């Protein structure tokens, strides 16, 4: 039955010049207060001879990477680098079981190159490379970058399914999924793009946005809150004294 359906989809795809059909399980992921990670599924159809590579990245943000060094017996922040538009989440997936061809990946700009990053203050290449490695290791620890290329499940050589795990530390924002179809010779047959958004819900997000947009009013509210609670405490403590 599955074979019949696959052949049918295959014929239809060829007819409409769209040999790949891809779907994403969710377009919006809600990051609520009880968010404990989420599994997103990308599934689709491919030619039996094609290999599929998936790149998931986003949201692009500015990061400051600081290095500590020992000076006069103290560990102080000695060097720092500000990199702009770095993806906070970056993961690669492939249908190739072993020996992923990194030449193909490099051609497709899968692997990020520290030379390509927009850095606000110039440093020599070695320093830049060390900072880049430190950033990558930090993101790996948070589960936001993968250490190696993760596996895409291939079903009957015609379908593929990739589970993208979004960890607890995932940052709200817009994410891009790029699906690359590579032939046996390592040439790009086609690529497709999908998008999803992680939205933070609840009080925390409102606080964050409000603090960023209306800093002065936010600080006044913080002070007012402290004065109100302090005032209530003052009233209650003195009320008790008076009662005694």
């Amino acid at each position, binding site marked *: 039955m599955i074979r019949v359906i696959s052949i049918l989809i295959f014929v239809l795809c060829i007819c409409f010049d769209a040999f790949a059909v891809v779907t994403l399980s969710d377009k919006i992921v809600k990051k609520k207060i009880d968010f404990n990670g989420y599994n997103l599924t990308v599934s689709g159809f491919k030619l039996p001879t094609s290999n599929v590579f998936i790149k998931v990245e986003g949201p692009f943000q500015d*990061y400051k990477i*600081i290095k*500590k060094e020992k000076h006069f017996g103290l560990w102080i922040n000695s060097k720092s680098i500000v990199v702009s538009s770095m993806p906070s989440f970056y993961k690669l997936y492939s249908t190739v079981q072993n020996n992923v061809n990194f030449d193909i990946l490099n051609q497709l700009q899968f692997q990020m190159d520290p030379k390509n990053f927009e850095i606000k203050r110039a440093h020599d290449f070695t320093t830049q490379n060390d900072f880049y490695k*430190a950033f990558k290791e930090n993101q790996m620890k948070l589960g936001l970058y993968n250490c190696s290329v993760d596996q895409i499940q291939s079903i009957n050589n015609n379908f593929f399914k990739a589970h993208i795990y979004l960890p607890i530390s995932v940052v709200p924002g817009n994410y891009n999924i790029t699906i690359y179809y590579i032939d046996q010779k390592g040439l790009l047959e086609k690529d497709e793009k999908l998008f999803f958004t992680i939205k933070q819900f609840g009080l*925390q997000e409102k*606080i964050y946005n409000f*603090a960023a947009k209306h800093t002065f009013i936010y600080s006044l509210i913080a002070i007012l809150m402290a004065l109100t609670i*302090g005032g209530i405490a003052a009233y209650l403590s003195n009320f008790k004294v008076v009662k005694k």
Partner: protein
Amino acid sequence: MIDIYLPIADIRVDLITLLFIGLITGLVSGLFGLGGGIVAVPFLTFLGIAPQIAVASVTNQMTAGTLPSFYTYARHNRVDYFLGGLLLCGGFIGNIVGLIILKILAAFGQVDLVISLGFLILLSFVSYTTIKDAIISLHYKRKKLERPHKKPIFYSAVSKLPLQYKFISSDYKTSAIVIIFLGIIAGILVMLLGIGGAFIIIPAMLHLLKTEEKFTSGTMQFQLVFTSVVATLLHAIAFNGVDILLCFILIIGTVVGSSIGSKIGLKIEKENFRIVLGIVILLICVRVGYDVFFEPKDIYKVVRMLK
């Protein structure tokens, strides 16, 4: 474990731990009259909260913490408003100076180091004086002797300075310059470290200004309420460093802890507890020192920049 996400600090922390820190801060404040910043800021940084955000949020918590005690002192006419007003003028100047220092330090990326070093020096000083003072008090108590009062220091030099005023809290005239200078120190401490600096200002009021002991705490609290408000405002506007959720949790813990602390304080012999406090502060000091002098686990730190 009830994890809570702090939006400005951008970190998940255990709610119970935060409430516990607030409670301990309140207990220290209620029992010994010390501002909680000296305990709260190091503990928050141990949890992984950026020192600058810890300082800014504790400054706001200080507003709530000092208000009840100021109100109590004011009701008992134990606040010298003129002296407090001059301290306050100095405090505002200190806040601005503190902000400039913070801006310079931020430009060099050394805010964390200065906060850690500042705490290291203050914590070692406070633990030493607390333990020493408690042991001396216990000695005199056991021998049933009256503890001799300390001789005022530098008073003759202070009395020669211009702008001498008479205050209700003192039988002697004092120079406004010295008072404003003390206020500046307090303002800088609030801004840089999130602490009121009572352990420096109160002895200075007693020995330099010859202020009567019954007026010192109330006047100090009066000055602190306003300086902490200004410091919070400056921290929030200049660095977006105040985490309102963190403040709220800390304030709740502090208010409860402070109430428990003052009740316990009436029943126990404080000297024994002051030795314990001194040892606890010493341990915090060792932990802060470890971070400064020993190789950190992560040499690199990645900070996501705010929008």
